[in-house]
C-alpha cells in the first residue's frame, strides 16, 4: 500500500524534471503529461485524492501548453472526479474549465453533459443561484444539439429552482413552455397536467388573482382535457379562496387534494408560502376593521 504513494511521488518528480528540462527531442509536454498520468493513477490507488487532483490539473496545464484542448478538458474531468471526494466547490470549478474547453473545440454534447453535472453539484451544495446558471447553460447546449428530451428535463429543474428563489414569473413561464412542448408528444402528454399544476402553484405564490384566472383559461387552451382533472379543481379552489381571503377554505382544498395524491416537498413548500401570505393578508384586514 505504501508503494503506491512512493511511486506517485517518483513519477511526479520525473515529470517536473522533464518540464524544467530542454525540449530538444520530442514534445516535452506530451511526455510530462504521460508521466503525470501515471503519478495520478498511483495517487488514486493510495486514496490521496488531493494530491491526485493536483496532478491532474498539472496534466491539464501541460496539454494546454501543447495546444491539445481535448486532452486538457479530459484531465479537468478526471481532476473533478477526484475533487468530488472531498471538495465539491473545487470539483465544480474544474468541471467549469472542462466545459469551457469543450465549447472551444465544438464538442457541445460533452459540454452540455458536464454543465449538467456542475448544476447538480451546486444543487447538492444548496447553492441555487449557481445551480440555475449552469443548468440553464446545459439546457441551451442540449437544445442546440437537438436533444429536446434532455433540454426539457433541465428546464424542469431550472423552473423548480426559480420557484425556490421566489422568481415566480420566470418559473411559471418555464413550466408553461415545458407543457406546450410536451403536449405535442404522444408519450409525454399525460404528464402535462402535473406541469400545469406546478405553473399554477407558482402563480398562486405571486398572489395576483386576475393573473391566476387568466392562467387557468390559458391552461385549458394548452391542454383541452385539463379542465376535467383534479389538478384543475385544486387550482380553481385555491384561486377562489385566495380571492375571498379565506385561509380555511384554502387549507380544506389542499387537504382534500393531499388525501388523494400526496404532495411532494417542493409543492408543500410553495403552498405553505402562499398560505402564509394569505394568512398575513387576512390578519391585516382584521387589523383594519
Amino acid at each position, binding site marked *: *500500500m*505504501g508503494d503506491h*504513494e512512493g511511486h506517485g511521488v517518483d513519477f511526479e518528480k520525473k515529470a517536473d524534471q522533464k518540464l524544467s528540462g530542454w525540449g530538444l527531442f520530442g514534445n516535452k509536454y506530451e511526455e510530462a503529461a504521460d508521466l503525470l498520468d501515471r503519478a495520478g493513477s498511483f495517487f488514486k490507488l*493510495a*486514496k*490521496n*485524492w488531493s494530491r491526485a487532483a493536483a496532478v491532474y490539473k498539472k496534466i491539464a496545464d501541460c496539454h494546454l501548453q501543447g495546444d491539445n484542448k481535448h486532452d486538457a478538458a479530459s484531465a479537468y474531468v478526471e481532476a473533478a472526479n477526484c475533487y468530488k*471526494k*472531498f471538495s465539491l466547490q473545487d470539483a465544480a470549478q474544474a468541471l467549469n474549465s472542462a466545459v469551457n474547453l469543450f465549447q472551444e473545440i465544438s464538442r457541445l454534447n460533452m459540454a452540455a453533459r458536464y454543465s449538467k453535472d456542475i448544476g447538480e453539484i451546486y444543487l447538492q451544495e444548496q447553492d441555487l443561484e449557481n445551480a440555475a446558471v449552469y443548468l440553464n447553460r446545459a439546457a441551451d447546449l442540449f437544445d442546440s444539439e*437537438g*436533444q*429536446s*428530451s*434532455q433540454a*426539457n*428535463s433541465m428546464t424542469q429543474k431550472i423552473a423548480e429552482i426559480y420557484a425556490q428563489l421566489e422568481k415566480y414569473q420566470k418559473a411559471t413561464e418555464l413550466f408553461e413552455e415545458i407543457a406546450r412542448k410536451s403536449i405535442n*408528444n404522444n*408519450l*409525454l402528454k*399525460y*404528464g402535462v397536467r*402535473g406541469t400545469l399544476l406546478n405553473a399554477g402553484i407558482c402563480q398562486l405564490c405571486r398572489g395576483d388573482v386576475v393573473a391566476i384566472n387568466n392562467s387557468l383559461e390559458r391552461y385549458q387552451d394548452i391542454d383541452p382535457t385539463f379542465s376535467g382533472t383534479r389538478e384543475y379543481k385544486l387550482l380553481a379552489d385555491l384561486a377562489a379562496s385566495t380571492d375571498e381571503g379565506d*385561509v*380555511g377554505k384554502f*387549507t*380544506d382544498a*389542499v*387537504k382534500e387534494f*393531499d*388525501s*388523494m*395524491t*400526496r*404532495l411532494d*416537498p417542493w409543492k*408543500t*413548500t410553495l*403552498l*405553505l408560502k402562499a*398560505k402564509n401570505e394569505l394568512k398575513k393578508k387576512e390578519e391585516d384586514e382584521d387589523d383594519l376593521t
Partner: protein
Amino acid sequence: MMSSSSDAAAALELQESGWEELRREARKLEGDLDVKLSSYARLAARSSSSASGAASPTADRSSWKSMEFEIQSLLGKLQDVNDAMSRCAASSATTTSVSQKLARHRDILHEFTQEFRRTRGNLSSMREHADLLNSVRDDITESRASGGMSPRVHLLRERASIHGSINQIDEVIGQAQSTRVALNNQRAMFGDIQGKVKQLGEKFPVIRGLLGAIKRKKSKDTIILSAVIAACTIFLIIYWLSK
C-alpha cells in the same frame, strides 16, 4: 551539532504529541457526532409518526432547532480539527499511515455532513407538510368525521399508490424518450461514418498513384547509386593497369 540534533528531536516530539492530541480530539468529536446524529434520526422518525396527530408542535420544534444547532457546531469543530491535522501533517514529513488516517477522518466528516443534510431535509419537508395541512377548523372537522372512515381510507390509499405508479411510469417514459433520441443521433453518426469510408475508398487510385511514384523514385535512386559504384570500380581498374 549535538544541540541542533536535540532541538530537532524535541521539535519532532512536539509535532507528534500535537498530532496525537488532535487525533484524539477528532475521534471524540466523531463519537459525539455519531450519537447526536442517531438521536436526531430517531427524533425525525418520532415526529414523522406524531405528524399525523398535531400534538404539541412547539416543543418538538424547539428541540429540533437546538439539536440542529448542536450538530452544526460539532461539524464545524470537526472541520477545524481536520484542517489543523492537515497543517500538522504538511509541516512534518508525511508518512503513509498519517496520510491514510487523514483521508479516513476526511471521509468520516464528509459522510456525517451528508447524513445530517439528508435528515434535516426530511425533517423540514415533514414539518412544512404538517404546517400546510394544519388548522383549527381541520381539527374540529377531523374529530367530527372520525367515525365511519374505514372503507374510504382504504380506497384513498389505493388511489394514492396508483397515482404514484403513474408518476413513476411517466418518468420512465421520459427517460426512454431521451434514450431513443440519443440512439437516433448515434445512427445518424454511423451513417455519416459510412459515407466517409466510401469517400476514402474513392481516393484509393490517388493513393495507388502516390505509391507508384514513390516506388519509381526509389528504383531511380538505386540505379544512380549502382552507376556511380560501377564507374568508380572501372576507373580504379584502368588506373591499376596503366601503372
